[in-house]
């Protein structure tokens, strides 16, 4: 039997194809749930669903003998079941009508959430069964199987980007199902090519299964968007309809017209306004975040309302010839600049499809706004454009932009943003002409959060740029819903202060800070219980600012490129206090994004404990292995540490490369693909050490080299990226891949080496460590983000290196016969 298996060739191609499809499907699920729900719930749901991998490990442990005895049909069946469940489980899960907000008081919603976890875990369970079973059956070819798995996954991270560019997410779901069926066809050929009759029947059946999703009516893949999302609510109004839809990995864009009821989107508008906004088309991203394209008939009086928003402040302080708008969106800020006859308007917009809508598809509606002679449209990420460009501006404007930043790009639901870090503000300030302004408008939160954190970030950035009295260079005003912060690269003049007072008084905007402000001038029009913004701003400028930040009940610590979590305001110190306010109006004080991350970690941890301990209780052979060699302790820690370290490094370096490559989608997909493919090459290379049984040397060398390379990268990548930042994107991608190659190559070796060694010692433990690895993957992704929020990505890398060191200890000490 063993000889027969050794002669048999493992199903390389179907493993790679399956792995490719599974990774593509995982990313697709994140997109789909970001559209039908909200991205932080998408993150939690998908993270928990990935525990399907760990469930598989436990299942293989318990049913190992039976499954191995029927390897071929079981392997094939699992691929087919993956294809069927990947499609049907998503469709079923969206029929459950889960509403996250109702969970607080309606326990039925909790059961619906659990059911969604189970449904979505199924596809990953089947994938892991197929790959895990192959690793056990062909354990002498472990390094090659793992390599095929990694190569496939690397390819999957690129394939899904292409698919999301050329097709809508609902249709991509059909494609991933078809890809799974193709993997099954490949598997049939690999396993049954000696049995022509059976092979023909299998291929025919699978061909039909491949085609089925494409011939079913579209209603089968219709996305059921939550009725509480903005798009869905807008569509309730009679006459409202979607007139254009565009999709890319950056998000699903829906353009909506409402002929009977015009949209009147004008956040931050003064109470003194009399003019109604002109006709608008609403542009929704992922059925949520809304911007508008405004009808532009080039009649200034129709746009006068824009001049009565808080973000118009800078235009009233000095004459502006050259303006840079970061995040052009539907063009409202461009219209404001046009209203003020700005000579040169540069607009940076990350989403090409949004530019196309304004520039081409609705060019008449927008009055050829983006084709105007004085408007220059730049399709780039903001930081990338600012660092690679020498031009200086009279005003750099960022107004209410979160929608198209990396944080809500839709593809990767993390909440990092490199737009509002200390380093980002330093770079913006360096691009200002003398006496010019950086203007940032944010939604106003009460108690104050965004605005004061931004104020603290501005102080830090000014100090880093060598300004000793930052208080002389800042202005903060607030309206009913927005705050606008102006930062100048020189002291604000008395004439500018006079203009500020006049504008604020005319528009009923409250002064929160300017150099020389007194408390009696604040909190006059939109009255708060206390002048919180003034008090916060002056405290942040005072000598006891550190103490103020420490005492404040929300996190106001400025975000940096190493801790780019501007939107993280939660402090554990006030957790119990807020909990005591439950039912007393206190719940809105919670920062749910952060708490959902914590909830995800807790759920994953509990599920992991169950999934890892269950086989220990139920499977006697594992307990026996433990009692004789205690190997299961070492194996547990070795594979847990490896799983955590691999993803810690991968996630932390993705963040570093985002700042070099700038585009969130391209950089993440390129870096992810490079990591997986080169790790696959490393796994393949490790085969030579396995065949010679040189485990100790190979593992020691690879782990030490990982530690050396990752440590040096931590120190050198920053300066190197600064040096190379001006290079063309393609060259930067190649350099990134070359830099990742050696690190990923060695990171691909310890896992197959450890598995192979374990197979020699006690192959009974293989499925169990497969479960351990599955749990580690889920835990590490959530844990890395949480650790980075509190300690920064550098800390995450250092911790990963400690884990690698620990895994070396576990192997050297425990993996002995």
């Amino acid at each position: 039997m063993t000889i027969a298996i050794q002669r048999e060739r493992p199903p390389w191609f179907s493993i790679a194809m399956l792995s490719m499809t599974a990774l593509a499907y995982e990313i697709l699920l994140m997109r789909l749930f970001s559209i039908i729900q909200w991205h932080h719930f998408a993150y939690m749901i998908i993270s928990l669903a990935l525990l399907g991998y760990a469930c598989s490990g436990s299942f293989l442990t318990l049913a190992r003998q039976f499954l191995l005895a029927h390897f071929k049909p079981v392997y094939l069946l699992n691929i087919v079941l993956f294809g069927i469940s990947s499609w049907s489980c998503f469709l079923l899960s969206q029929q459950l009508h889960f509403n996250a907000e109702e969970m607080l008081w309606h326990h039925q919603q909790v059961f619906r959430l659990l059911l969604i976890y189970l449904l979505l875990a199924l596809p990953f369970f089947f994938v892991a069964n197929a790959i895990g079973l192959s690793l056990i059956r062909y354990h002498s070819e472990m390094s090659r199987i793992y390599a095929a798995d990694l190569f496939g996954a690397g390819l999957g991270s690129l394939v899904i980007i292409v698919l999301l560019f050329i097709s809508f997410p609902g249709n991509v779901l059909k494609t991933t199902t078809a890809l799974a069926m193709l993997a099954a066809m490949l598997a049939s050929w690999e396993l049954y090519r000696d049995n022509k009759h059976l092979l023909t029947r299998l291929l025919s059946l699978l061909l039909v299964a491949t085609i089925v999703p494409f011939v079913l009516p579209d209603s089968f893949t219709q996305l059921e968007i939550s009725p509480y999302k903005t798009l869905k609510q807008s569509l309730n109004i009679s006459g409202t309809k979607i007139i254009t839809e565009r999709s890319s990995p950056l998000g699903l864009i829906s353009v909506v017209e409402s002929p009977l009821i015009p949209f009147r989107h004008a956040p931050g508008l003064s109470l003194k306004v009399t003019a109604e906004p002109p006709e608008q088309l609403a542009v929704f991203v992922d059925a949520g975040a809304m911007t508008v394209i405004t009808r532009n008939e080039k009649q200034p009086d129709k746009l006068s309302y824009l001049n009565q928003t808080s973000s118009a402040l800078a235009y009233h302080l000095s004459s502006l010839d050259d303006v840079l708008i970061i995040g052009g969106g539907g063009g409202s800020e461009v219209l404001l600049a046009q209203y003020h006859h700005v000579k040169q308007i540069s607009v940076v917009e990350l989403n090409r499809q949004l530019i196309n809508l304004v520039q081409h598809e609705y060019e008449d509606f927008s009055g050829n706004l983006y084709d105007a002679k004085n408007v220059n449209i730049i399709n780039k990420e903001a930081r990338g454009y600012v660092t690679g460009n020498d031009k200086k501006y009279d005003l750099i404007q960022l107004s209410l932009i979160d929608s198209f930043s990396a944080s809500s790009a839709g593809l990767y639901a993390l909440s990092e943003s490199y737009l509002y870090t200390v380093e980002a503000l330093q770079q913006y300030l360096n691009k200002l002409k003398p006496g010019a302004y950086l203007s940032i408008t944010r939604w106003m939160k009460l108690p104050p959060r965004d605005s004061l954190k931004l104020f603290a970030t501005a102080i830090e950035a000014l100090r880093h740029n060598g300004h000793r009295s930052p208080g002389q260079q800042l202005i903060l005003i607030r309206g009913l819903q927005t705050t606008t912060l102006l930062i100048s690269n020189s002291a604000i003049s008395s004439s500018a202060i006079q203009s500020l007072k006049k504008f604020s008084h005319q528009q009923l905007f409250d002064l929160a800070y300017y150099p020389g402000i007194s408390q009696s001038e604040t909190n006059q029009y939109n009255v708060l219980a206390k002048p919180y913004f003034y008090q916060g701003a002056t405290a942040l400028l005072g000598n006891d600012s550190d103490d103020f930040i420490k005492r404040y009940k929300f996190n106001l610590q400025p975000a940096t490129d190493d801790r780019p979590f501007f939107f993280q305001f939660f402090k554990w110190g006030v957790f119990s206090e807020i909990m005591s306010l439950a039912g007393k109006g206190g719940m809105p004080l919670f920062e749910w994004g952060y708490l959902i991350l914590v909830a995800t970690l807790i759920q994953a941890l509990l599920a992991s404990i169950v999934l890892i301990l269950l086989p220990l209780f139920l499977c006697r052979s594992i307990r026996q292995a433990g009692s004789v060699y205690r190997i299961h302790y070492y194996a547990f820690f070795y594979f847990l540490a490896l799983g955590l370290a691999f993803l810690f490094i991968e996630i932390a370096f993705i963040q570093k490369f985002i700042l070099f490559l700038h585009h969130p989608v391209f950089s993440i997909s390129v870096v992810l693909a490079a990591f997986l493919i080169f790790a696959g090459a490393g796994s393949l290379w490790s085969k030579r050490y396995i065949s010679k049984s040189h485990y100790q040397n190979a593992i020691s060398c690879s782990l030490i080299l990982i530690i050396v390379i990752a440590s040096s990268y931590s120190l050198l990548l920053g300066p190197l990226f600064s040096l190379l930042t001006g290079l063309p994107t393609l060259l930067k991608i190649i350099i990134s891949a070359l830099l990742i190659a050696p690190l990923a190559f060695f990171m691909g070796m310890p896992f197959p080496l450890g598995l192979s060694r374990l197979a020699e010692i006690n192959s009974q433990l293989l499925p169990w460590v497969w479960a351990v690895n599955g749990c580690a993957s889920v835990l590490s992704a959530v844990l890395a983000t949480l650790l980075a929020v509190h300690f920064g990505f550098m800390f995450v890398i250092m911790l990963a290196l400690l884990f690698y060191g620990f895994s070396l200890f576990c192997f050297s000490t425990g993996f002995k016969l």
Partner: protein
Amino acid sequence: MFAGWTALFIPATLYAASDYHTLRQHLVNAIKQDVRNTSFYINKTALDAKVMQAIADVPRHQFVPQSQRQFAYLNRPLPIGHGQTISQPYIVALMTDLLKIKASDKALEIGTGSGYQAAILAKLADKVYSIEIIEELYHRATKALHQLGYDNVTTRTADGYYGWQQAAPFDVIVVTAAASHVPPPLIKQLKPGGRMVIPIGSPFMVQQLVLLEKDSKGNIRSQQILPVRFVALTGKHD
């Protein structure tokens, strides 16, 4: 608290009229407790007795879908379809209290929704005008208000942004849906000395409840009251 548990375990069909009366009384007590708990934000320890009496009188269960009736007297928002909600009774009471309604007042409501808020206003004001954009909700709410005999309420489907010009000016205006800004026509239709309550902000952010007051000279002053979530403003042209 007790009312909550009672409502959870007794099927709606088993309730008699006296049961509903008792449940409403429990609801009033729950609101009173909430008011005391949130006195820090709202700067008072009790709401107007007339407002509380209106809450005690209006049968909330008649304004919610059949499937939600068992929860009608819990102090929480409930879904009423079309992605809309009936507000938490505490919020309804608070918004009504902030309006300081007199028996001779003319009130405008933007966003009829279930009709519950309009019924509360009808108990306190002389005349109530209420506008709803979603036709199905308009029909449902109008029918409920009519059946329960709230004859001083006039409803229509229209664009809330423009208010109700023919019936203006109003002593009080209440907007029960979130907007990206305060619609200028509503400010115009508010009488000098009038009061308007409106939640402001982007649809998916924690909202602030804003009280706008127009003084005798027509000057506007606003005040932020309490963080609260609402559904988005919808409106329609005549």
